[in-house]
């Protein structure tokens, strides 16, 4: 393998490893967060009651 090819492969593998690991960490956090219902927007309960004082 030539010097340039070695550099391309080395840097390429480095970026692939880091991108894969970063994506895995973010997606795992999102997945477990959704499983637990954390971070989801709470529905506006008052909106559904229909109780208004306006006439």
């Amino acid at each position, binding site marked *: *393998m*030539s*010097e*340039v090819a*070695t*550099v391309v*492969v*080395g*840097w390429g*593998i*480095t*970026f692939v*490893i*880091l991108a894969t*690991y*970063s994506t895995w*960490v*973010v997606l*795992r*956090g*999102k997945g*477990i*967060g959704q*499983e*637990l*219902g*954390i*971070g989801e927007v709470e529905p506006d309960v008052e909106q559904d009651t229909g109780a208004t004082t306006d006439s």
Partner: protein
Amino acid sequence: MLGANSGAKMTATPVTRVLGVSALAATALMAVLGLIVSPPDVIQGEAVRMLYVHVPSIWIAYGGFALTSISSVLFLRRSKRRADQGRHYDRLAGSAAEVGVVFTAITLITGMLWGKVTWGTYWQWDARLTTTVLLFVTYLGYLALRRLPAEPTVRSRRAAVMALISFVNVPIVHYSVDWWRTLHQKASLSVGRRPEITGEMYWTLLYSTLAVTILATWLIIHRYRVIRLEELRDEEGLEALIASRLNKDVGGH
């Protein structure tokens, strides 16, 4: 059930988003500097560009393992006095070790590729390479130990002890090139010693280290929060299991 988790947050916050974007921009600039701006070496030619990923990676790995050790000491000393039973320190130790292992893997892979063009071989069982692979395997063992089923406090205690034992190898890896005759060159930069490189190469190496540090910090913060979410999920699963067991018992009578 969710009420217990209402204080918990997702893995991303505005601060980590800024840190994440900074890491992305910093690594992009690192690629420009390392692959285009920095000149080829007189002896090694283009192959010297491996320096900018290989060297910062092992420094980040050292830093990650040092953080694991410090957190482990704090866990062992303070866990009984803290309301969270030292879980904060345990999470920090685990996340830093995992990031350290990822960067050790990068060090080994880039080192092998670099070795092939400069030494003519991917691998030699010399002191630096052998101790580095031992470091990688030991911390893989540490991560495996963290996943063994056990009572959380006992598991964290065992992991903390193993982290301290594993860290003994870090100075051995670093100084192996001084202590033994090895194929591996001496450290490019070392405290109290004149740098082996200068000029654009020197600054590119320093900048690469900064860029990789930002990325590693972002990864450690995110991984810490994921570990916290994993703990919450396990606790909720356990509570649900106990509740269903109790309901079954009540229904049975």
